[in-house]
């Protein structure tokens, strides 16, 4: 969805930045948002500075929105991991390139014992 949405906005993102934060995602304020997301997940001591950086770069409302999105996906990743869901045909096809680019794989259901 990062690739699709950024293409719609006329500036295709480099999706490898989500696996390699050193890469330039070409998303405005990308490094600042990634640093905030990482600090939320890890609870690191960098969180306060990361939050301040987002406030200063994009504003308080965007900071809250970023907090909302990051914490939303703390939920979704756990559902995916704990229920053994498969992608489904549509998502499987649509995300194959992106998953290969990011090196994200998972054994299929019959083998994930």
């Amino acid at each position, binding site marked *: 969805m990062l690739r699709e949405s*950024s293409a719609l906005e006329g500036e295709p993102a480099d999706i490898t930045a989500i696996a390699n934060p050193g890469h330039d995602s070409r998303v405005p304020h990308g490094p600042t948002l990634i640093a*905030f997301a990482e600090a*939320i997940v890890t609870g690191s001591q960098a969180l306060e500075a990361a939050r301040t950086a987002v406030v200063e770069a994009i504003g308080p409302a965007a900071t809250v929105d970023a907090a909302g999105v990051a914490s939303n996906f*703390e939920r979704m*990743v756990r559902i995916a991991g704990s229920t053994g869901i498969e992608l489904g045909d549509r998502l499987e096809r649509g995300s194959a390139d992106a998953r290969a680019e990011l090196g994200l794989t998972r054994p299929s259901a019959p083998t994930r014992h």
Partner: protein
Amino acid sequence: MLSYASAPVPVRSGFAESHQRFWDRLARPGAGWTGAERVAIAHEARAAARCDHCRQRRSALSPHIVAGRHTAVTDLPDAAVEVAHAVMQDAGRLTRRWYEARLAEGLSDGQYVEIVGTVVALVSIDRFCRAVAVPEHALPAPLPGAPTAYRPARAVLHLDEAWVPMVPMDNADTPEADLWPAGKTGNVIRAMSLVPDEVRTLADLSAVHYLPNERVRDASACQGSLSRPQMELIAGRVSVLHDCFY
């Protein structure tokens, strides 16, 4: 009422309202657990961060080779404690064999899904608190009553879709017709449908934190102050940090 008034940035009211609705639901009996048990599941999920056994398993090559017991803080059955801690701390490395072992220990599939639903709703609220520098909310006092034992009549297990039974995508003529009003949804939403209220909670939280479920697949959809690519960059980074293939 839950509040974000102490946050260093103004938090729009939708967050507190949505989180309060989950808090209210958390205190009530669910489909497979009493209110007291549901609140206990939430206590265990929070306690997992301080559990030595969880810490040892996370650092092991495989979590399934580490012997020992969780540092439980409630009198929930061991199987329920295991699920609450594992989903919280190491969900990306769970397996179908591990899930089936929990069923063999006495959990029903519906009870399992309800634990997962409780833990994941809680973690999203607790992480939001962390993100906006507000202390975790005190868990609610449980309300009395027995579990409803509700189970969707058409829920079925297809192992090529998930480990857990799910409501079929075509559910228009069932009491679960409201779960995906657009008529279709992703497996990550359907995965919770054995306990329909878990999908309703998921939808309620998602609509505030991210997007209404029915708009997620529209790449032009966004809300709030971030562009959709900015939202997806954050979502993608969080997913990668958890080794989430989805």
